[in-house]
């Protein structure tokens, strides 16, 4: 029995301090307003307060904390990207993740499982090797492994894939992990709140006001707030915010769906991803298989679920894990992915002074939560992009300096 639980038992849980403050009125003005109370928004607030001493901050969330893509993703954390920019950025994120439980004094269930990205074709093998070589060059633990090595780790997988598109090898990334996604948002929120940040749920931003090209505040459904710095961290809702300032982005919104099975006793320790089969799967600490596929084929600003998704996913899953046909799908859901042409995020300053953008998180936002919060906080505090995010500026699209993560960012490719 861990000592912490014994100590905890002396108090009643309802006497514990609140994670998030009770509803209270908005102030007239803040130094920084963060739009979006997901993982990224909360992390940015946390690092603004903790590392830059900026605490007169309001996080505005139209729904509830972590209710957007933070609570809808399949919680995989990895850094085996394809470009140098991507690898450095996500590696920093992974390092931050490893210490989050201690930082928060809250267990985020950061569980290192090992991550296989399967290759079923020659060309996928080439891409895996490319990723492995770039990763190794940057000191990331990544390796192309053969079928026998996979068999040792995942003996219950059908390498023949039911006779078609057999597994030829995989990219193995030992640090690949899963975490309790909600707890990440809660931990950041609690940490930010303890340092003086205000969190306002059910508060919707309806407009951003500027004067002479500079941000002066935001209009909300609870009234106007003055702020010289406004950060948008709203993933799938980004177009709604950037429209307010006539900022053009190449973001397109595609639904991304996921589902879980009924819980069963643990049998799967590793995370398995197959781009060709459009499947990724891991087993949560509750025992559910958490499964996802590639984004939906058409743009849509909605979080509705489709039958096609769950039909396609289960069908392909069985090629790898025939025995899962005896499991049952318990729940499915969808999130809105803000996809960019180069499958890399958009981070940093914009043409509107005082407006900072953190968007384009597509299917890779959760794993970047700590590093995006940290680097955006730096960027907002210093009004200067953090070194790690310089390659991800919005103007790269007009300058043709794309980052090219298509081969590593999404299952869909």
């Amino acid at each position: 029995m861990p000592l912490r639980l014994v100590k905890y038992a002396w108090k009643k849980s309802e006497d514990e301090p609140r994670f998030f403050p009770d509803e209270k009125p908005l102030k007239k003005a803040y130094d920084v307003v963060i739009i979006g109370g997901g993982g990224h928004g909360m992390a940015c607030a946390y690092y603004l307060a903790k590392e830059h001493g900026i605490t007169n901050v309001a996080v505005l969330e139209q729904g509830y904390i972590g209710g957007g893509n933070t609570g809808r993703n399949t919680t995989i954390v990895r850094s085996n990207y394809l470009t140098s920019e991507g690898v450095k950025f996500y590696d920093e994120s992974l390092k931050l993740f490893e210490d989050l439980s201690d930082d928060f004094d809250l267990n985020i269930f950061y569980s290192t499982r090992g991550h296989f990205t399967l290759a079923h074709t020659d060309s996928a093998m080439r891409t895996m090797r490319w990723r492995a070589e770039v990763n190794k060059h940057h000191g990331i633990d990544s390796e192309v492994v053969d079928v026998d090595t996979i068999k040792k780790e995942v003996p219950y997988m059908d390498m023949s894939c039911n006779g078609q598109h057999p597994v030829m090898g995989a990219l193995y990334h030992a640090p690949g992990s899963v975490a309790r996604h909600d707890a990440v948002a809660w931990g950041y929120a609690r940490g930010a709140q303890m340092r003086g940040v205000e969190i306002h749920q059910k508060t919707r931003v309806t407009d951003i006001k500027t004067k002479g090209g500079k941000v002066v505040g935001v209009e909300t459904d609870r009234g106007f707030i003055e702020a010289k710095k406004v950060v948008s961290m709203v993933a799938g809702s980004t177009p709604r915010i950037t429209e307010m300032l006539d900022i053009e982005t190449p973001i397109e919104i595609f639904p991304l769906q996921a589902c879980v099975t009924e819980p069963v006793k643990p049998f799967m320790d590793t995370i398995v991803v197959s781009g060709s089969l459009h499947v990724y799967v891991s087993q949560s600490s509750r025992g559910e298989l958490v499964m996802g596929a590639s984004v939906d084929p058409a743009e849509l600003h909605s979080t509705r679920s489709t039958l096609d998704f769950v039909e396609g996913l289960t069908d392909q899953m069985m090629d790898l894990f025939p025995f899962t046909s005896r499991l049952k799908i318990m729940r499915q859901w969808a999130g809105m992915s803000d996809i960019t042409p180069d499958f890399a995020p958009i981070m940093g300053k914009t043409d509107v002074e005082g407006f900072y953008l953190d968007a384009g998180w597509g299917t890779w936002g959760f794993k970047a939560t700590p590093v995006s919060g940290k680097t955006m906080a730096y960027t907002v505090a210093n009004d200067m992009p953090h070194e790690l995010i310089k390659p991800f500026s919005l103007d790269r699209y007009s300058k043709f300096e794309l980052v090219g993560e298509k081969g590593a960012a999404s299952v869909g490719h």
Partner: protein
Amino acid sequence: MKLRLSPQPLEWIDRKNPLTFTFEGKEVTGFAGDVASSALWSEGSKVLGRSFKYHRRRGLLSFANHDVNALFQAPDMPNVRGDVTPVQEGQMFTAVNTFGSLASDKGSLVELIGKFLPVGFYYRAFYSPKFLFPKWERLIREMAGLGKVDTSWTESRQPKRYRHCDVAIIGAGPSGMAAAIAAAEQGVDVCLIDENPYIGGSLDYQYVNEEALSETRSSLKSTIESMANIQVIASAYVAGYYGDHWLAVNTDQGLIKLSAQSVVVATGVFEQPAVFRNNDLPGVMNASAAQRLMSRYAVAPCKEAVILTANPEGYRAALDMHKNGLVVKAILDTGSTDSEWVEQARQSGIPVFEHATIVEASGRKALQAVTFSVDGVAKQLACDGLLMSVGWAPAGAPLYQAGTKFAYSHTLEQLLPVSLPEGVYACGRINGVFDILDQFKDGEQAGLAAALYMQGKETPELNDYAAQMAHSHPYPIWQHPKGKEFVDFDEDIQFKDLKGAIAQGFDNIELMKRFSTIGMGPSQGKHSNMNGIRILAKLTGKTIDQTGSTTARPMFHPTPVSHLAGMRFRPERLTPMHAFHQSVNACFMEAGNWLRPEYYPSEASREASIAAEVAAVRGSVGLIDVSTLGKLEVFGKDAVELMDRLYTMRMSNMAIGASRYALMVDDSGVVIDDGVAVRYSDEHFYVTTTTSSSDSAYRMIQKKVIEWGLQVTVLNRTGQIGAMNLAGPNSRKILSQLTDLDLSNEGFPYLVMRRAKVAGVDATLIRVGFVGELGYEIHVDSMDALQVWDELMRVGEAFSIKPFGVEAQRMLRLEKGHIIVGQDTDGLTNPFEANMPWSVHFKKPYFLGKPSLMKLKNEQQRILVGFELLSADRNAMPLESNLLIEDGEMIGRVTSIGRSAALGKVIGLAMISIDYSKPDGELHIKLSDGRLVKAKVVKTPFYDPDGLLQKPDEEVHNKEQGAAA
């Protein structure tokens, strides 16, 4: 059989057909028609499972396909639901999630330390020191989870069926049956779906002893049976409503994908348990569960019962018990009900305590007594059953998924649908209609409206038949100083857990769910969400409407993967020459859905066979099947315009009968496809695409045609046309024997297209040089392709012709420095980087990607170069995707590499920083093991740089390069 009752009027069991199965190794006897839980209960086995966290003994609770505490493990299936799974002879079940056995579960030790495991306890500990977390996590994972998976289970798949109907009615209870008849009377096609094996719903378990209704019952059922336009889909539930009345109906035989024109939701309500101390003891159950147990399976819920009620339904259940000769020790009415019901109960000798408060249930392994208080005086009654009838929550999943808004009715103390989407109707108890005769009327009007709606007719105003009194207790929660009041039986969530979560700031319905895990178990909150909402509203001083509800997502019940997946359909495409390839034992590789010969095993090893194929092409002649290339025909008034816009090279100045390399880039200038275009006539082109992009290119072109508003038709003829490439110095000699076409350099020059008969078959011939020899690509109708192939092979025999596969072609084209799109290019490569500036014709007014390329032309950072390896070490052979390193920095990567027999060295292509691209410059390739090997930049083509071999006996006057992948 301890609790089996005498025959019931509507029972589902077949008493002539007894059967035996085992549970926890012990034999259990039941009847055909029994479910596992009813058979066990009939023998007096009231402990059906252990709870998720504390491993408390649990019995029946709702008996409505969400009794998650009675989940069983079968040898071939985890998490079998005892309350709905019919038993079969010889079946073997054990309880899930026990450590030891159900009777003696070591997991129950957890309850002893329950004090240390409050809500969200796992967020509080186990993370420090960090190195111990994996051990704790393993323990936590072992404790969580329910059934066990056997990874040696084989695949199981159930075919799917498709069904269209005019009106789909979900739920065949009283209102659903009435709706079906009313809709069917309008002459429309009706599907009536119910999750039970028989229609009837609550009419058959709540009103089984109501003599006055027996005639209505039989008339409803016989009418439904007699109407040809009503199809009853029984033992089936709607797993999800997916928009536009598209329903996923799960049956025992697989999924039915049902497309309806309108939908009536008559799913009724879920009975909600009361929350009080030890409300989870086996023997405490919902009153409707008891009624189902008696009427369907003729099993008594107990021998001596106490009823806790807040509505007339509780009295009705008491009278049903009484009628079956069971003892009802008391009715505890939480308020005061209609005197008529009280009177009836008292006439039957049942004591009624009005304004009673439940204090606790008690018992060691099962319920033994109930303590309650009336006017502040505590009383205790010994009993082995407590039936709870304190309220209802909508079974509203299809309505929620369709976008229905619900609002709380204080009259009924129930959530009711208030705004229904078009074509969706609700009726019966989900509408708050509790009077049985009103339920028929409500069903009739909904069924009629649904039928009229789908016929496009005006629908009448709907009457409101909702009850004018509450059938639910506004707050059926009775706290006890010692706790153990369970709200969620799946997840073992107690009142104090929710209180703790709310106090810590998780005071939003979604946050409370996510922190406490209420509603996250397999029953997805069917028996817990409503009480959770009531508790949250109460503790935060808000109304139920302000508190809101969590989202009711599919699946309605957990749905088998084998049903959702259905049968396995994977397209596999074979070229017309497949029979030949098989006959010579070709080694196949997958290219998308195609099977292509990778090589033909003619020598001892793969490498030697490939080398022999390469040598044949270079030395004499070879033949390759290129039928997998995408093949598009483009014709119409704007065909020229389309071709010019799609491809980077000018196509409008192609002479009729000419061919040209066709390179396509996307809006951002990235190379996405290449092929060869030929011009048949002014307004008619034929163009190939790479194998992998034939479908995507076709789709994209179709989209562009519409976007640009062009008068042009694009046909995808990939599967209709077979193609082969005859290549090598002797190719002309072979072809000349099979065609009358003038094959001389004047008659059929390089890069020209001709249409002629080959081996008696109409063919399109293109003189191309992808592999760098004199060669002809021959396109014919796929029905004729094998014949032409065979003829070429037959005539070629004299020249030792060899069929060659993809691997030999890769080597041959590498020697020529020709790119393969997707291998030598990546997601960002533009034509300048691919070292093909000649392929971009900027003088055209517009083509796809032109604005981007204009800019990119001057900002080139990297380039595809040829290299040869300087090291002769055969153990230091780089692989494709190995990096090039200078001063410790990555400067590029190898995209293609191979050992050229013709040149006697290892050659390759690399995408590198332009700073290192000067000819003869030294490069360093980093092997996967970290060693560096030296190479140098060389000009391409490596082989026959002036292209003399492609154009033998011909003057070189055309600098344009030709290639087709």
